[in-house]
């Protein structure tokens, strides 16, 4: 069996309308993959940057997977939320990236999108906040029913991941 180490951090997010943000993240892998150590989901703290646009989290990710096959390569999915001064949370974006398959250090940008409702909903959203959310977060990292959604692009989440592969070459995998 081959092993995959993912060591890195969720650096922060930029490009969102408001910058008081937090992020719920998770890693999803196929059936052939088994998590040996590390937390595969979590939530960052709420960051309110005083200067500049980027909200920094520096949230650590340290995972150790073992696998019997190449299907279901792990993917990292994120939900970016905004917390305002009254403590209300509003969804600001869903995004996902595949964990890179080549070893080394990667600086990645994960773009996010947010579902939109009808124009009445959008008008109400401007005043009251809220807005539609996905019923199940699986849709973030699967493409099956995506065509039914109407979305708008939101900001970008920056991540830095170091990928270490072990024993893949023993089984003839080149990456």
């Amino acid at each position: 069996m081959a092993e995959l180490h993912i060591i890195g951090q969720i650096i922060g997010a930029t490009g969102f309308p408001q910058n008081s943000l937090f992020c719920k993240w998770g890693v999803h892998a196929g059936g052939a993959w088994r998590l040996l150590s590390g937390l595969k989901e979590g939530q960052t703290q709420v960051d309110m940057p005083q200067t500049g646009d980027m909200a920094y989290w520096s949230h650590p990710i340290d995972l150790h997977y073992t696998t019997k096959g190449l299907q279901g390569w792990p993917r990292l999915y994120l939900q970016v939320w905004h917390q305002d001064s009254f403590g209300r949370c509003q969804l600001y974006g869903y995004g996902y990236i595949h964990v890179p398959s080549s070893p080394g250090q990667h600086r990645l940008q994960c773009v996010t999108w947010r579902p939109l409702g009808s124009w009445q909903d959008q008008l109400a959203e401007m005043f009251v906040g809220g807005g539609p959310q996905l019923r199940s977060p699986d849709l973030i990292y699967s493409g099956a029913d995506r065509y039914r959604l109407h979305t708008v692009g939101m900001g970008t989440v920056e991540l830095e991941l170091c990928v270490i592969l072990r024993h893949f070459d023993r089984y003839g995998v080149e990456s």
Partner: protein
Amino acid sequence: MADGWCTDTGESVYRSRDAVKNLRIRVCIQRVTSTAALSQHLHQQVLSQQERGVIELDTFSSQTQAASSTDAEELVVGWQEKFFSQYEVDLYQTESNCQTPLERQYHTEIMAMERSKRRQNQRIFTCTDFDRFSKWEEQAQSLLIPAQSTPTFLAERMANVRHRRQERRPVESIVHKSRLITWEPSEEFIKNSHIINTPVQTMHIMGDLGPSGKLGLKENEYILCTIKADGNGVITIKPDFNNNRGAYRLETQGEKREVWRLYLESASSDIHADEKEREQRMYRDLYTRHKDYLNSLVGQDFEMVRIIILIQTHVSAQGYEYDNLYVHFFLDLPNNWSSVPFHCLSGVTQTCRTRSVGKEDVAFFSYPFSFETFFHKEDESDGSLPQWPVLYFKVLSLDFWQRYRTEGYGFLVIPSTPGYHRMTCCTWRPLQSGTVAELRRRLSRFGFRTQTTGSVTFTLNCIQHARAFIDASTLKKRRQTVLDQLGGHSQQGSVYNVLEAFQRAQKRMQERLPRDLINTSAQLNSESTA
């Protein structure tokens, strides 16, 4: 007459995996007097002459010995081993002077020692971690001449913390999940959390360097050596062991300035060979067992298939005329490529409204798309390189009135090198000139002229998996990339065949040629090299 003094009295740091309680230090002090110096000099001379068998030694050795009883001392000190100074003996003999339990314990020890008349040390004594004479504290804190009257705020806090830390057990590093923040920290909490301090145990070896017969005065006590050990096996000794560098020079303050020689030597016994062997064997067992455990967790199987996998995320589209874009794409597999049956090789993304990033309007899709394809290398004689799959896509816009408009067509060749790729593909759309054509554009898709529209960015991760790689590594051949493997087989085969044919022809030619011709050619060769 001066022998070499060692002037380097800096501290040195040692690391030890064994317990610090096994540490032993031999301390020698010796007063430097004129007679002693002279006798020592003569002693050395005599020794050198004795080798030539000239002078006897008796008279000189007895003189040196007589002088050594009160002016020199040697003591082996263990870690935190308490030796009493004359001053302490005098002080703790009277019971009324003992206030703390420690002092009372000293009292009993001293009484026992006096009764048994067994006293190992005269001048050299130790100040362990538990004794804290305030004089030493003040001296230790003042680093300047003239001594500062009040220590700084930081020095005060550190002294407090160090003092407290030694009495407490090591702090556990469990963080309560419910109480991460202390809203009203107390003074003590601030002190303990803000100043980083590893608990260190200290021991001073000191000497009473007063004139012989007048021991027991506090002014004559000097620190000979300071040893600090912390919990991680780091031992700091100031000054360091002499190690044949010459003696340290101690000069007393006071009316009579005397010079003393100080020697420090390590007297700890080494670990026995069989104990060391046992320890190493234990560590080795532990590590192999842990390694086996981890291996068992990981397992041994892996799927052995001839397969090429591609993972892709469809990232963003920018620069298009209209809003509410979505992308419809499919993957085209050339000959010799196949896929898992019922596997979906096409997809439609969600409809995304653009927003401006910089000067452009960008739509973010973040659409996952992964597939596996297999390559079959049936026809070996076919000399061409294999065609890689191509991803064809078109970008459409869907507006409020439910009209679909094609915004562009494009294609992307799946890269043949494995790894992470980020590619931007430009798209084009067919164009018909004229206003009527423009109107008709909203309804029809045909045109013979094209116009460049925006671009789409894809991020791909390619992995290539082939059984041939394993075979190559087991046969210890140099591994070729998939490209070489797949496409070049027949080509390489042909090249190799040609080379081989040439070699065979050359061999045959050499066999058929007359002997002398071959010899002359060999001669020519040798001459040319010469």
